[in-house]
């Protein structure tokens, strides 16, 4: 077995353990490449059955339009159940990154929105596509990561995780976040996308797109809600990571295929999260967000 076979077998193992030992699992589907790989592995884990859980998308109304179109096409093609949750308080208050700032926007739409959805459906296991190579605090998170009834993560009081014996036991109200891609790297993800021919949102591939420069970050103008001080430029860009379009930086790239992306990655000198405006809010910001329940 090569390393992708081994990573795949481990991830499938994790999916099966979590489903066998939970009452109400759900897969947090954020439409990005990691979610695409996660969903592909879920299908493999339970084939010929369909994945025995719904997908949950915590929407912010600020995702790229191409992401939403891709999401709906995937769900329709595979015949899966999709729950879309939009924090009703954010909808009512019109929370957006321009007026309220990226930190509040993300906390209210994503962190609070996710908690609402998990509470409403009483999910006891939530699969996520987070990888340990993304950020320092994630490197220490367990594959089966315990959350209190208030969705809190306590990094200093994590359950030891030995061998492949995952502790799935929770009291009512408590839950487990399960990360089948914990040991994958960004390059592994792309190599696997290439090998398995997994569809991903076209925004990952280079194309000429309308962008503006915000403090050195290239932001794509995806709709007319974006306040503009000057007309956008047309540039050949792609995205390494996808989120809310006003908060997601594009990179100049000519990689139009997965093979070209893999080649570009091997020569890359910056990490994928560099394009994420929200991670740079303050030092240690990811750990702080995670303690509060951000994915």
């Amino acid at each position: 077995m090569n390393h992708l076979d081994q990573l795949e077998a481990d991830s499938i193992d994790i999916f099966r353990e979590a489903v066998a030992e939970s009452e109400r699992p759900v897969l947090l589907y954020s439409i990005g490449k990691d979610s695409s790989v996660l969903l592909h592995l879920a299908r493999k884990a339970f084939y010929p059955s369909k994945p025995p859980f719904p997908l949950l998308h915590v929407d912010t109304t600020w995702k790229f339009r191409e992401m939403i179109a891709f999401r709906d096409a995937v769900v329709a093609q595979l015949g899966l159940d999709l729950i879309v949750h939009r924090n009703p308080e954010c909808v009512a208050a019109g929370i957006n990154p321009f007026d309220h700032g990226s930190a509040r926007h993300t906390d209210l739409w994503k962190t609070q929105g996710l908690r609402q959805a998990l509470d409403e459906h009483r999910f006891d296991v939530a699969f996520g596509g987070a990888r340990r190579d993304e950020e320092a605090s994630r490197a220490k998170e367990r594959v089966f990561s315990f959350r209190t009834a208030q969705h809190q993560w306590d990094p200093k009081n994590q359950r030891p995780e030995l061998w492949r014996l995952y502790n799935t036991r929770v009291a009512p109200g408590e839950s487990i976040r399960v990360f089948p891609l914990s040991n994958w790297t960004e390059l592994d993800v792309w190599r696997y996308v290439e090998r398995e021919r997994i569809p991903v949102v076209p925004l990952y591939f280079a194309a000429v797109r309308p962008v503006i420069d915000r403090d050195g970050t290239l932001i794509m103008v995806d709709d007319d809600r974006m306040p503009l001080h000057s007309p956008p430029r047309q540039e050949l860009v792609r995205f390494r990571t996808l989120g809310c379009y006003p908060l997601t930086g594009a990179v100049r790239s000519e990689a139009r295929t997965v093979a070209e992306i893999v080649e570009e990655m091997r020569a890359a000198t910056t990490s994928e999260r560099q394009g994420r405006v929200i991670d740079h809010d303050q030092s240690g910001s990811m750990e702080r967000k995670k303690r509060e329940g951000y994915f």
Partner: protein
Amino acid sequence: MELLRFITCGSVDDGKSTLIGRLLYESKLLYADHLAALEADSRRVGTRGGELDFALLVDGLAAEREQGITIDVAYRFFATEARRFIVADTPGHEQYTRNMVTGASTADAAVLLLDARKGVLSQTRRHARIVSLLGIRHVALAVNKLDLAGYSRELFDEVSASFAEFAADLEFAEITCVPMAATEGVNVVGRSELTPWYDGPTLLQWLESVTPSTRRDVSSRLSEARRDETSRFLVQWVNRPDATFRGLSGRVLGGTLRRDETVRLGNRTTSVARIVTMDGDLDEAPAGSSVTVVLADDVDASRGDVLGAASDPPSLADSFQARLVWLHENGLLPGRQYLAKIGARTVGFTATKALGINEIGVDNVHFDAPVPFESYRTNRDLGSFVVLDRLSNATVGAGMIDFALSPSNVRWQTLTVDKQARIARNGHRPCVVWLTGLSGAGKSTIADLAEKALHAEGRHTFLLDGDNVRHGLNSDLGFTDADRVENIRRIAEVAALMVDAGLIVLVSFISPFRAERALARELVGENEFCEVFVDTPLAVAEQRDPKGLYRKARRGELANFTGIDSPYEPPVEPEVRLDTTTLSAQAAADAVVARLRALGVC
């Protein structure tokens, strides 16, 4: 490309995090933004006078940065042309043994770091023993900080020899010693001119070439000799999309599973009809594969079963000699009921010896149901288990099976005169009435009055009193936590036997721990246990102090006295709660009898 998992361990300040940071840096896995953050952090909180402090790369959590130490297992990834690596970085403090055990449990190889100037310390020996215990057979000894010792060959040879001498008793197949200076990058990736006398591999060259253990396990992935071994397949999930398909989804944990292979499942023999994956059926699946198996016959199989080659099927047993590592602040109490997860089964678990946090011991352990198993030395995946606390659900211990103590051939003797026959004769159902509460709460008085009332009605009763039993059956036990657990375990067993004999058993014991009361409840049938919480506040009990015990405890003449220097865990949902500050003893006894009627006992 192959995958290698390894662990790094060493004492505080031996330079582990620096080494890993260096490996990431030298293998060009540090992105520019990470590097920029590292430069900023190095200036702000670095320990290298503003120079790049690689340790900051690996020490992820904010608390660790502040304290300048690593406090948990961190997993890091890098790759070369030859291999993809997963590194478990584990801390060096003694109190964090559990993190090292965690990291080592999935590792194929270990890098042990030490400071050349300090030589082989007790920490080094402890780490080496854990690495050996967890079944890692290939070790690199990184003799670090040689830059601070003038790259002395004599020092390196001396340290290497002293480690080899110590490690002769451990189960290592191979030890490679590398002279190193991680902060300078000497012999980490490329060979250095500063150690011209060294002709062995650099650390990275060793990591690229080491061939891990030949044991068959999933975690050790690079093995060639595996095809000859007999197959093992762990059933994780029964796959039934519709009436036409019934598969067993799980993982090959040893040997190679082949289509048409004759396999044994429990006492049934069948064969593998199909090996199903989403990419099409397979003819064979090597160890480590996650697949779905369809059997030729409709054999009843469920989660936790292990399929094995019919020529050498896996054994089942419920009692083992095992090596245990305790991971939790609350120590292992002999006789206490825990849970153990082994393979894909979770069963009741008890051990016979006490262990404190970070202690390692050999013990006889007992599971409450037979489980398929193999010795940990033969099969890491079927020989390992974790111990879970029944109430908090915490992972409290880890174990490795040496061997089964006896085949599970002790059959339960079927008796003709059974409980039903006794109920018919007695005219009432048996029950344990368990009175718990502080010393001086009024348990014995209430129990006595309740028994009197039941006896007057012609019920068959017996009263087990804490003080009285401690004079006989439990006269060998004191008042430590471990003895309290054993005290209650014996009482619970005796009470359960009396229930089998058809009696209403009144048990009057402080019984301070929820876990033991839960055990007592589990030993008898549903509706045969009535927990009575004699709820008297500590201040009131202490004021009553009928036996003068509180005064003695306060004077320090009695140790481990419940409520004073030993905890009492009140029941969460008792069948009866008696507030003795408002109820008379007779009223309390009447309430107990009334509840027994409501439960249908009498």
